[in-house]
């Protein structure tokens, strides 16, 4: 006993005087990660999947109307339904974990650039089998393939093309599969995964906070690298590559980026509820110059939105005619990446890694 006392007294006496000399304010210990997960799951993720499910169902209805009677009018309606579904998925694609990952649906729902000749080939070979879609590569199906079918030419030509039965059947199958995927994902979230997600509050590679934050950053990097830098020609030793934009036929690329930015900002702020910004504030984290890190990150979101709004017209034209404006967006996204991926992650003690490994 006496040894224990001597030993611990020695250690404690040496440690205590110093531990009292700290000058920083106490952190708010009320904060709980589960709060973020609960709020984001309930108010952001599940509503996003609900919306996508509704939008794909609506797309399915409009597709049926269009296929029953292909006219300029019905084409316009199905095109608008597609736009709504595509924009909706730009929120959904921020959550590439859980059901969407287990069911491997991410690329089946949306992969670009799409393969035009591949789609035509898939239409030619269509054999009426119910499982036909399963054997079709992701660059020939999903939202991007529907875009090609509905938007790749002017209205008259598109309406004319849909006289062919194979084409009708293929579009129908594409849209039906999308609606199936959407309702399946929503079902998984509503029947179990939501609570699994909220309760997995740990800090390992598979914990929910790790997944949520990493996928948010992954989406940011996807936008920066593939949706902006690639068409600018910044990822090849070449001039701009306008045909590499996300929405080549519907000219929707800039709106899609805007939706991506909005959902990332929503995850960060948690909208009205708790988000990563509250977490940063609860730990009283600043930028080293007295400003809250959360405010700095929000400013950068705002700046990115401004740069995006400053770009006129379809992105495939802008990369040629307003190169500086698009480059400015790239620079803002780059700076946002550093703030989120380095500073936020590091200071919240979150893992920036998609695979597990020991540290020391």
């Amino acid at each position, binding site marked *: 006993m006496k040894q224990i006392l001597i030993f611990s007294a020695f250690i404690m006496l040496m*440690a205590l005087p110093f531990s009292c000399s700290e000058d920083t304010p106490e952190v708010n210990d009320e904060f709980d990660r589960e709060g973020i997960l609960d709020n984001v799951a309930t108010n952001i993720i599940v509503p996003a999947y609900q919306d996508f499910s509704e939008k794909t169902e609506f797309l399915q209805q409009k597709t049926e109307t269009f296929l029953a009677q292909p006219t300029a009018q019905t084409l316009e309606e199905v095109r608008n339904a597609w736009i709504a579904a595509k924009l909706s998925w730009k929120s959904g694609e921020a959550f590439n974990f859980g059901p969407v990952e287990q069911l491997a649906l991410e690329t089946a729902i949306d992969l670009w650039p799409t393969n035009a000749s591949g789609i035509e080939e898939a239409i030619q070979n269509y054999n009426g089998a119910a499982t036909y879609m399963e054997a079709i590569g992701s660059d020939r199906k999903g939202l991007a393939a529907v875009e090609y079918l509905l938007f790749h030419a002017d209205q008259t030509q598109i309406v004319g093309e849909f006289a062919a039965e194979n084409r009708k059947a293929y579009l129908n199958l594409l849209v039906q599969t999308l609606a199936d995927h959407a309702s399946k994902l929503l079902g998984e979230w509503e029947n179990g995964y939501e609570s699994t997600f909220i309760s997995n509050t740990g800090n390992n590679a598979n914990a929910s906070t790790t997944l949520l934050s990493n996928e948010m950053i992954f989406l940011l990097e996807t936008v920066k690298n593939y949706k902006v830098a690639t068409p600018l020609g910044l990822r090849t030793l070449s001039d701009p590559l306008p045909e590499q934009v996300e929405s080549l036929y519907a000219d929707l690329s800039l709106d899609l980026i805007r939706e991506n930015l909005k959902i990332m900002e929503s995850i960060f702020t948690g909208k009205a509820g708790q988000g990563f910004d509250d977490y940063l504030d609860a730990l009283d984290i600043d930028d080293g110059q007295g400003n809250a*890190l959360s405010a700095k990150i929000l400013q950068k979101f705002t700046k990115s939105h401004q740069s995006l709004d400053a770009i006129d017209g379809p992105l495939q034209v802008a990369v040629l005619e307003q190169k500086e404006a698009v480059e400015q967006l790239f620079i803002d996204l780059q700076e946002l990446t550093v703030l989120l991926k380095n500073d936020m992650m590091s200071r919240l003690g979150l893992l920036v*890694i998609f695979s597990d490994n020991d540290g020391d």
Partner: protein
Amino acid sequence: MGMQTSTLIQPDSLKWKRVSTYTLTDRFLFQQVSNAPLIIFRLLFGAMMCVSVVRFAANSWINEFYIQPVFHFPYYGMEWVQVLPGWGIYLLFALIFLSSLGICLGLYYRLSTVFFFLSFTYVELIDKTYYLNHYYFVSIIAFWLIWLPAHRRFSLDAKRQPALFSPTTSILHINVLRWQTGLVYCYAGLAKINDDWLLRAMPLRLWLPANGHILGLGFLLKQSWVAYVFSWFGMLYDLTVPFFLSSYKTRRIAYFTVIIFHVLTAILFPIGIFPWVMIFSALIFFPADQQERWLQQMENVFVERSVRTQTSGLSPRKSAKFPKFGRFVPFNLNDHGPLNPSTISNVSSDTKKPPSQAKLLLFSLVLALQLLLPWRHLLYPGSVFWHEEGYRFSWRVMLMEKAGNITFRVTDPDSGHSMYVDNRAYLTPQQEKMMATQPDMILQFARYLDKTFAEKGILNPVVTADAYVTLNGRLSRRFIDPHIDLSAQPMNLKHREWVLSYEE
């Protein structure tokens, strides 16, 4: 000193010494004591390595770390250590497994230790992405085991060749492991004496709240004063625990804190097997006669009685009567006096030979090298945390939170076209993450890009980098001079001027 000096075994080579003088060299180097500490160390080390390899394979890390990557980051001067084709890597890991099993069972012990040391170290040298201090520790221990007779008892070798058997060993063979373990703790403690660790409680202040959910201690771990206590305690603990483990009076409680400390770190941080390696390694500090009793209990279970009574030279009752020193001696070693020669008279004479001069010299050199290596960062200007010049192989364990983001830009000087490189096209996420904060790896990758683009037909590509790094909770700042053509920078051990200064 009141020792039983007259009964000390004095080999011929030591005749120049007066038999009645029980010198410090005898006490620390030549004294014959029970070899139980060595045997137990061997068993545990071998077993841990077996488990560790199985865990590594089960996590599919062999594939992920050594087969998937298209590029690796070799160590400077060791670039000849190349990754092997898939089957070769699996073979290497099979060799690590078999040799660690050999070490554990004491089967073909010398061969096993040599193979284990070589194969394990080879794997570690392939890619510095995976550098961990405890892998370095394992390599060093493996090197020691080659030279230590840890197979002369409770081993399949001793069963196959009874002539090998010995119940004793020169205390040097046990002490090197104690010094080695103590050195690791002391240097880990010294490394913690820095502003961020002591005055800002960094990085624990970032890491502890992140683990707030654990053990229901969340509310505590979020308090910054807790981070300060952990930081200061950690530093003092590392600096002093080998000494407390060495003293008879404090050993038990010190070992108890070893268990608590490492179990706590195992729960809080993803540090794999390291805590277990340290918990088991620290057992080496227990005196030989005490471990002799543990080993005899194991032998009671495993070795047939007839064999045991024939061969074991020590009786527990006798060893319990060895006088105890209360006196404090660093890293020792209360191995309680020499053995009674009558109890070991049936042991072949060569096992009683003291370690040769060559062995002593080798051991001294290995220890001296390790005493010097951690100080090499003093040869470089600037912060070792920022520049990481002389950072590795210095027991800087869990010492900083550093994260980076790096984008390389390759420019074709002819056309003026330039492009950003997708790091993920060449590196795994783990490699990218480690490279982003370590200048030597940044340079290696830049040179690889230079080569890759030159092969694509671009004459003298220019490789620059936009790199931002955050260290211990400070806002990210530029890490690399963005105007420098990294592909033209030499690979050497000199200070890297193109890493922007940390101090402003």
